């Protein structure tokens, strides 16, 4: 019994699928910005002299890295209302993606910071710069440069992880695809198509990161 391909439902749903792509990109970019902020802030706090703050960061990283994202997103979705914060699925998904990506970003950026030669920090200290200025002006950019490929990989991962946000019906590509599939039963066609769309988005983001990296980290090193 042969399977006849029928792309009609996919073609009819293409405008919705493209809007789904926009939703995915919104989740991805918002998640990335939040991740980067958490990553940089987390590394700064982890290097601070306040012991409890350092431990809080370590605990956060361990919690996130050792639990499934699906559970995390459900947790944020159902826990926030308990403390009186009611958010629609999309902002909820962004927060969950940001927290998750942030934990990984902390570990990646921390590696970059550790790769910075001690002499750089000493030069900053000898000039009388306060520690936070040394982190911000002396350490951060070379550290990010050192881990930029890993960070790019992590953010591609984050982009693909947005599909899990369909579990709380956030507006993104996989949710849209599920709707079309539910109405048409054209599972193979629908998921084949969005596979291609995810591939294109990942590729585009990779190019964008390459471009940003070449601009922001374009200084000569020996």
């Amino acid at each position, binding site marked *: 019994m042969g399977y006849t391909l029928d792309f009609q439902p996919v073609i009819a749903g293409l405008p919705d699928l493209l809007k789904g792509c926009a939703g995915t990109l919104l989740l991805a970019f918002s998640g990335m910005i939040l991740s980067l902020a958490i990553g940089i802030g987390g590394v700064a706090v982890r290097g601070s002299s306040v012991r409890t703050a350092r431990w809080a960061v370590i605990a956060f990283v361990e919690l996130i890295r050792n639990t499934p994202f699906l559970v995390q997103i459900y947790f944020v979705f159902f826990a926030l209302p308990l403390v009186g914060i009611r958010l629609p699925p999309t902002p909820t998904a962004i927060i969950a993606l940001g927290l998750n990506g942030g934990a990984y970003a902390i570990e990646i950026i921390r590696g970059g910071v550790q790769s910075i030669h001690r002499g750089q920090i000493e030069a900053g200290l000898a000039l009388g710069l306060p520690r936070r200025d040394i982190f911000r*002006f002396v350490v951060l950019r070379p550290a990010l440069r050192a881990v930029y490929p890993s960070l790019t990989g992590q953010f591609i991962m984050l982009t693909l992880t947005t599909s899990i946000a369909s579990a709380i019906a956030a507006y993104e590509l996989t949710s849209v695809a599920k709707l079309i599939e539910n109405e048409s039963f054209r599972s193979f066609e629908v998921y084949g198509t969005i596979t291609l769309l995810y591939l294109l988005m990942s590729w585009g983001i990779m190019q964008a990161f390459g471009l940003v990296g070449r601009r922001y980290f374009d200084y000569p090193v020996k």
Partner: protein
Amino acid sequence: MSQASSSEALITMSGVDKWYGDFHALKGVDLEVRRGEKIVLCGPSGSGKSTLIRCINHLETIQKGRIVVDGIALDDSARVVDAVRREVGMVFQSFNLFPHMTVLENCTLAPMRVRKVSPADAKATARKYLEKVRIGEQANKYPAQLSGGQQQRVAIARALCMEPKAMLFDEPTSALDPEMVKEVLDTMIGLAREGMTMVCVTHEMGFARQVADRVVFMADGEILEAAEPETFFKNPQNPRARTFLGEILAHH
């Protein structure tokens, strides 16, 4: 300040002890550096020379003794440490320029952040000192685009931009190719002639002869001898100093 400011102590170390774990790195060090004085610290490797000058700006902490810089008694509080570091410039063996900043940005960062100087003033000061170390035309280059000697001169200019009262040099020519040593030493000689207070850890005995008011010899964490260069080089008193000079001058 009193009228006798040229002879008063700018840096005073008294009874300074430092340990790294069980290793006794500095043993009861007493050293006084007067305003405008140039001191060359020498001695075999591992003798504690670098450790000594790194204690002056608190890159190393001491366990015993007292260090006073420009009237400020060093302790471990950030406020005091920052106050001392503002007044004491340091030049490192490995330059330690910030690779992601241009030469000019390297020179303006600390004055703007620490002294709260306006960007325009910071740039003007930076250009002045970059001219002084004869590297003004490289202001918009990145460190990696410069030779070692040029980088070290930028590092000197960067420290000078904070208008420090004293300069510490930690083996400033040891990482340089031989042909670049002279340009850095010439810059340091120029600085010495202008009356900068300087403490230099170096093996450049020619430099010591030319500019040092005193040569201080260290071994095993102790100051064993301190004398004017002529006296020190012609007639070292301490046997270890004699051995050291014999070894180092044999190559010159």
